[in-house]
């Protein structure tokens, strides 16, 4: 069958939008990463790989932000996946109660991140916050913490907020994945005398792997993009202990007026996410089984 050349015209609107909103900024960022552009003036100079050299060898704050981001990502990915999966298993059947619970768990997702930041800043407030007050009421005073002011735990406090914010979204993906598993397989497992754990291990999890892959990849990307939450709750402090790569890019670009350097960190950021996502896909793909 001969395809008319005019069909290619249909690609144009999409290609145009993609070029304007994705390709151009991407190529621009790559270009400016080799310059010392301050983001304001007309003039800039090429600095070769100087910005990359600085980020990789001469910027202790950047190294710290990468470490913070890794801690944040690990806690969020593990906790969010487990919480979402556990709740998905609980609310799997389409009963009225479960439909209500699903909506309830999903609710935080529709809030704006600034609202979430405000709510959780109040919860974490060391003197007025509800969390410390509850601990006190329960006689667990020894667990009272300066949740966002203690540089050793602040990043984990933010991770908990991120999990609360997005677990509902992942729950929906898991519920869809679980509901797609044929009932027959569970019946066979039952006839064969498989325990609940064996059924989960041999039937549920392998068939849920595609959903889990999406959840983990998306959660990973989300945890690198948690800019708004970190910015609104701690601003990266205290002493850079909650500074993640995205907030650092913002600081370098918009507070230090060093767009060239910020662009180079952005490129490195992209490479880090790409490597992690690739490794996750590789690891999770080996778990996939078809019956």
């Amino acid at each position, binding site marked *: 069958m001969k395809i008319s050349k005019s069909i290619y015209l249909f690609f144009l609107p999409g290609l145009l939008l993609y070029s304007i909103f994705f390709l151009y*900024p991407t190529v621009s960022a790559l270009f400016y990463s080799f310059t010392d552009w301050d983001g*304001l003036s007309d003039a800039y100079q090429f600095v070769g790989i100087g910005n990359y050299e600085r980020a990789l060898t*001469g910027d*202790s704050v950047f190294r710290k932000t990468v470490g913070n981001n890794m801690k944040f990502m690990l806690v969020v990915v593990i906790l969010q996946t487990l919480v979402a999966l556990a709740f998905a298993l609980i609310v799997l059947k389409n009963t009225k109660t479960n439909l209500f619970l699903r909506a309830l768990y999903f609710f935080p997702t529709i809030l704006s991140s600034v609202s979430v930041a405000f709510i959780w800043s109040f919860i974490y407030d060391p003197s007025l916050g509800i969390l410390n007050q509850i601990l006190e009421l329960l006689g667990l005073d020894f667990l009272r913490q300066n949740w966002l002011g203690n540089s050793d735990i602040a990043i984990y406090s933010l991770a908990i907020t991120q999990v609360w914010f997005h677990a509902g979204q992942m729950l929906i993906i898991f519920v869809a994945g679980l509901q797609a598993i044929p009932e027959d397989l569970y019946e066979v497992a039952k006839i064969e005398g498989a325990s609940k754990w064996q059924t989960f291990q041999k039937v549920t999890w392998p068939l849920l792997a595609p959903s889990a892959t999406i959840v983990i990849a998306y959660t990973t990307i989300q945890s690198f993009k948690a800019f708004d939450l970190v910015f609104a709750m701690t601003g990266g402090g205290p002493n850079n202990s909650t500074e993640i*790569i995205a907030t650092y890019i913002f600081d370098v670009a*918009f507070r230090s007026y060093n767009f060239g350097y910020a662009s180079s960190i952005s490129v490195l950021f992209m490479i880090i*996410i790409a490597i992690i996502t690739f490794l996750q*896909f590789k690891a999770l793909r080996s778990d996939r089984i078809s019956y």
Partner: protein
Amino acid sequence: MISKKSSFTAALLLPFLALAGCAGESPDSGSETESGSGDRTQISFIHWRGEDKAVLDDIIAQFEDEFPEISVEMNIYPSEQYQATGQRMLTDGSTGDVFTSFPGAQFEAIANAGFFEDLSGEDFVENFDESLITVGEKDGQQLALPYQLVFNMPVYNKGMFDELGLEVPKSWTEFQEMADTLLENDIIPIAFPGADIGPNQFMNSMMMNNAPDEDIFEKLQNGEESLTNEWWVKTLEDFQLLEEKGYIQSDALGTSQDSAMAMVANEEAAMLATGSYHMAALLGLNPDLELDLMAPITVEESEAQYEGINTATFMLAVNSNSEKKEEAKEFIRFLSRPEIASQYANETGQHLTVNDVEYESEVLQNTAYWIDERKTRFQPRFLITNAQIEAAVLGSIENVLGGADPMEAAEEAQQIVDENRE
């Protein structure tokens, strides 16, 4: 199911979205002007003082009555956002014919980009106190005119001090005695909003006499000084002492500005470690408070050179890219009239840099003596022109308040300073 390739591509593009706003606009963007409605020329006025909206609306209405050919469109942005993105709005001249700038890093960046119209020689410059507008000068040109005069030093409960028979301490020894007396009376000496603006405000008065050299941060930035030297390590040790002796509330690094203000308004704490700009809000929370200003003197009385900190800020400027510069200047001329400035000062509870302003509110009258009678220095933090170095300096304070040794915190911060020195 998402294919590996498309996921990889999505992940690849993701970080650039964070920079889409910066890279999407090239440095050589063309200029565009916005025409006014009818015969009127509309000028754009951008700033960050949301709390001043009502009084500025009224002043703008008066301006438009007197100059019917000019209308003013005011846009207000949160200060954090303004500090970060304000300068980018000036690039094409369509926004911010009149704009405001913070002193320090933002002023330097805008000046280096050439967005300030030189106001030297304009008649309205004489309406300002000459000694208070030097921060808006660069290379002999008056690029901006600071409008507000803020005292970035603790606000204290004068009534409480009088009741307890306490006097304003004149030395570090006296300061500690005063704090001990407050603690004995179950009053927290200092409410410190460590989760937000506390470190960047309180560092000024804590270091003003430890490092009386006003060029200290310039020297730090060019490598002649170090944070590991006596002046900064002592400042960090003083912060450590405040924390260890309970002179600031526990968990201070988790305390927000609102919580700290509530502590002072409820008279749980005697001082608020922010600045004069919070006096009106404190009185709003508790009208019975009698307030004044007091900076900690961290040296012995004989060594003290400064009594407080001032900042001439909210710097009015004309965008050099604007096509309505004359109208923009007319608006600044109007704002600098003593009667208009007086209205602004009294309705916002701010001291101003404009001459012949009549302060009517009690709190402004009671603290006006700080303008002429006390020796204050310009806010040192605003003399750090490199934001990464500023963050390192502030980070060392947070580090110490979090339990780090002052020298180790100073060394860690100095490493960041060395990495970012230009």
